[in-house]
């Protein structure tokens, strides 16, 4: 039998409505926002509501009443009688078991709901293609505490009904990467079998340290309390997930000569050798003849109002061009650019001024000094072109591309190139050379603000790629899982096209932005206090925003 916790309040000033109701409870009862309560309604039906806010009031008419009650300001006075006080909670109607959405009646009984009722009230009982996205906990800290797995309809996160995930939250406290990895782990588990119609592959960008450079190794929980491992494993099992880390993982790091002092990765030489030995790691290179088209990616952050950079790039890409058409290495290319940038150069007949060439040279020269811009790929060694590898991605495979140690412009270059390749792959441009790409490819990138913030120049080729992915990827099968600190800084067309939003802990400056205006104030304030591992999740199939929790990562963690 459900526990009776209070009664409905309906007054002239605060009536119950189709949307919401208030009820009183004992002041000591532990309830929290997002808890579901059950209210008796007409025809034997029950109306369910989600708590939005809880207020405590007393019969004191003003602050002055309380002040006077302490002998006019004596802080040591204790009262022999406690002032009459009560809690009342405001709840939003989420569901009625008899489809009767008339307002609930005054003094109607309010109960805690059972696990089945909560599932029904949130609309979680009839989810097709279920994909676990965390667990929700109700009535925390009471004997009635309920923990339930929460499932999404995978067609609403991986397409075709709805796609893309946006995770926001401040660094460190929100665990954005961990949540994205948890979801991807759930997807990989789910699509491991052949029973699903779709096949999924993952392309993950490692942007920080070597965080994601050992996702196929189990977490040793060495920095956690004893017993944490068992607890975490139990949570994974309760959610219906395996306790294995990621499977079929391949790592790609920017090429550097093994003997160079400077390496473009945070992995140690031993770790690199180890992974190469296991046939898991390759170093990627960019070769002039194949990758010159991506030079524009280096200009993602450069303002180009007169579009001179763009004209230079199109001249370079042009196979028929007299100056650049026949070049085959980056060195030759740089020589040519240097020539163009010289005063009174012969090729300076066209509309591109020497000054523009100099600007172009300045930007490109520094970038091309990196060892990953090479003359050719050596087939004998663990080397590759990233685009060639991406074209070969197979079902259930996870590609981790390490760009953590690259400077920002080169990170953009690698990311832009990869997104473009994946998009073109799914568009069918490589149908002739590739065999059967998976039906869904998930791209995960942290720090989306670098590529798709509101301040990025409109001409940015990477922004264009991202917009293409978010706007058309749903049907093509390219799914973007992106994370950023401040959601409000992201281009509206990017966030607008995401079907699923996960809000982690953030600050109050962020929640006062317009993006959050649809959230009730209590939820906004809650966002500033969320624990690590807690998220508010919004998805079209949920009746309301949900507060969920996910377990600790199951793959190897590197101490900071």
């Amino acid at each position: 039998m459900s526990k009776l916790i209070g009664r409905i309040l309906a007054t002239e000033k605060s009536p119950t409505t189709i949307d919401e109701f208030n009820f009183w409870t004992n002041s000591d009862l532990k309830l929290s926002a997002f808890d579901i309560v059950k209210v008796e309604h007409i025809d034997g039906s029950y109306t369910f509501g989600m708590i939005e806010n809880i207020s405590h009031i007393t019969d004191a008419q003003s602050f002055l009443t309380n002040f006077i009650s302490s002998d006019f300001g004596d802080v040591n006075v204790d009262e022999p009688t406690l002032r009459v006080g009560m809690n009342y909670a405001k709840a939003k109607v989420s569901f009625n078991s008899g489809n009767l959405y008339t307002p609930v009646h005054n003094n109607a009984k309010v109960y805690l709901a059972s696990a089945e009722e909560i599932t029904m009230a949130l609309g979680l009982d009839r989810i097709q293609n279920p994909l676990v996205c965390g667990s929700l906990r109700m009535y925390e800290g009471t004997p009635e505490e309920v923990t339930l797995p929460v499932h999404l309809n995978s067609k609403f996160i991986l397409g075709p009904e709805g796609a893309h995930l946006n995770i926001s939250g401040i660094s460190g406290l929100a665990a954005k990467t961990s949540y994205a990895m948890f979801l991807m782990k759930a997807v990989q588990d789910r699509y491991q079998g052949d029973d699903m119609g779709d096949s999924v592959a993952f392309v993950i960008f490692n942007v920080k340290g070597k965080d994601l450079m050992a996702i196929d190794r189990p977490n040793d929980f060495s920095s956690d309390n004893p017993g944490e491992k068992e607890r975490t494993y139990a949570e994974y099992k309760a959610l219906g997930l395996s306790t294995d880390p990621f499977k079929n993982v391949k790592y790609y790091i920017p090429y550097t000569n093994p003997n160079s002092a400077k390496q473009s990765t945070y992995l140690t030489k031993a770790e690199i050798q180890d992974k190469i030995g296991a046939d898991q790691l390759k170093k990627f290179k960019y070769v002039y003849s194949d990758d010159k088209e991506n030079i524009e990616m280096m200009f993602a952050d450069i303002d180009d109002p007169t579009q001179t950079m763009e004209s230079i790039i199109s001249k370079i890409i042009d196979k028929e061009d007299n100056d650049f058409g026949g070049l085959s290495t980056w060195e030759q290319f740089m020589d040519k650019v240097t020539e163009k940038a010289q005063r009174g150069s012969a090729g300076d007949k066209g509309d591109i001024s020497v000054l523009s060439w100099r600007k172009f040279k300045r930007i490109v020269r520094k970038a091309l000094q990196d060892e990953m811009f090479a003359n050719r790929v050596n087939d004998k060694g663990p080397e590759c072109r990233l685009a060639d590898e991406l074209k070969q991605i197979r079902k259930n495979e996870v590609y981790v591309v390490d760009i953590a140690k690259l400077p920002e412009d080169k990170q953009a270059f690698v990311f832009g190139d990869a997104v473009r390749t994946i998009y073109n792959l799914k568009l069918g441009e490589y149908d002739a050379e590739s065999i059967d790409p998976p039906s869904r490819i998930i791209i995960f990138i942290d720090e989306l603000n670098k590529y798709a913030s509101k301040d990025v120049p409109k001409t940015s080729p990477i922004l264009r790629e991202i917009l293409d992915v978010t706007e058309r990827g749903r049907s093509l099968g390219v799914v973007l899982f992106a994370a950023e600190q401040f959601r409000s800084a992201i281009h509206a067309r990017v966030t607008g096209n995401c079907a699923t939003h996960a809000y982690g802990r953030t600050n109050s400056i962020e929640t006062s932005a317009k993006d959050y205006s649809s959230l009730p104030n209590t939820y906004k304030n809650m966002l500033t206090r969320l624990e690590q591992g807690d998220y508010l999740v919004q998805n079209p199939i949920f009746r309301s925003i949900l507060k969920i929790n996910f377990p600790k990562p199951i793959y190897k963690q590197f101490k900071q």
Partner: protein
Amino acid sequence: MIETIGKSEDNKIMNILAEVTGGKSYKAHKYALDRSERPSVDYGPNEIVWKRRAETTPHKTYIDLSERCKTLAGQDDQILCYFLDGSRRIFKVDDMAYTQSGGRGVIYPVVAGQIGVGCCRRIDKRVNSARFKREFVLSMPDVADADGKSGFWPATVKKLNECAELKRLGIEFSTILPYKTSKNDDKKYEDRATASIQDRMIEREKELVAELVRGGMLNQDNYLVKDGSLEYRPTKEDKSDKRKYQTFKNNYNWVIGASKNFNPEVCMDVYGKPNPKFIADLPLYHRTPVAEYENDMLGDIKFAVWYIRLRDKKQTRTPFDGILKVEKILVTEEENEHGIESELVDTLSAYLINERNPVCYGSDLRWANHIYPIYLTESFVKSRYLSTESFLHLF
């Protein structure tokens, strides 16, 4: 099928009363007779005679209790556990004409009231309801009973309660109280009716106190604080049986009365002169010496009475705000002879002074004289009334 709204006129209470008593109902304007509750000094005549000091220590002037208050506040015990308050809401509901000698019709008001008596118990600093009684009463002129036979009023009430409308609403009138219409009292009829209902309420309060005593709930660790004066008149039945009379007095051994309003003129100083200034000048957290008084109207019951100041004069509007009049019945023979133990008076006073917080400032104009558990009890009783609209609609 929708129920027919409205009812046949014959069903209205006033029509039934007019028929039974042979009067004519005028369907006059219905309105409330209660005064709003505001702080007031209760002047006017009072036959109470102050006699001698009524405590064991012959104090001559104010007694400082502030240290004792602090000590008691620091302890975690409490002896003031029960709080009782009665309240009534009175309405003039009609005018009724009765033919008198010479065939002339005289108009008398018909008054109806709701009486509520409630008792709350404080456990662990929280006030919970312990007892509640509510009743609906009517007051009519005594001449309405044409025959003057006993049994007329109970029969009328019975008939009234059989009416379909009251049955449907689940409401019953408990009694009809006749008020005297004799000319040798210059009080207005409305006031006489009000007084009869007030008496009824006091009767109910007495019953409730007796009930608490019989239930063994009151003792030296569980005192009852009653709102208002203890000036209860023992009824004839009370007095007729000696044992019963002693029981009546014993009932009050663990009861103290705390009045917000009092007549300062009645207080005499040590020289036997009325001296309101003596009370007005009472310092904060002090009490006056205990005086004893008896009243012919109240029979041979002797009362001990003293005053305590809860709030600083600087912070109240008049010097009488913030003063509580405390009464206790002298029960034992020893008490009657030598007065109450001064130690007990000090302790009770200190506990009462500690009740000064919290206050009901903002909700009640009499906040300076109110003690919070009594205020809560009063609020509890009032919250159980039938709303004015619903009540007046019965008539």
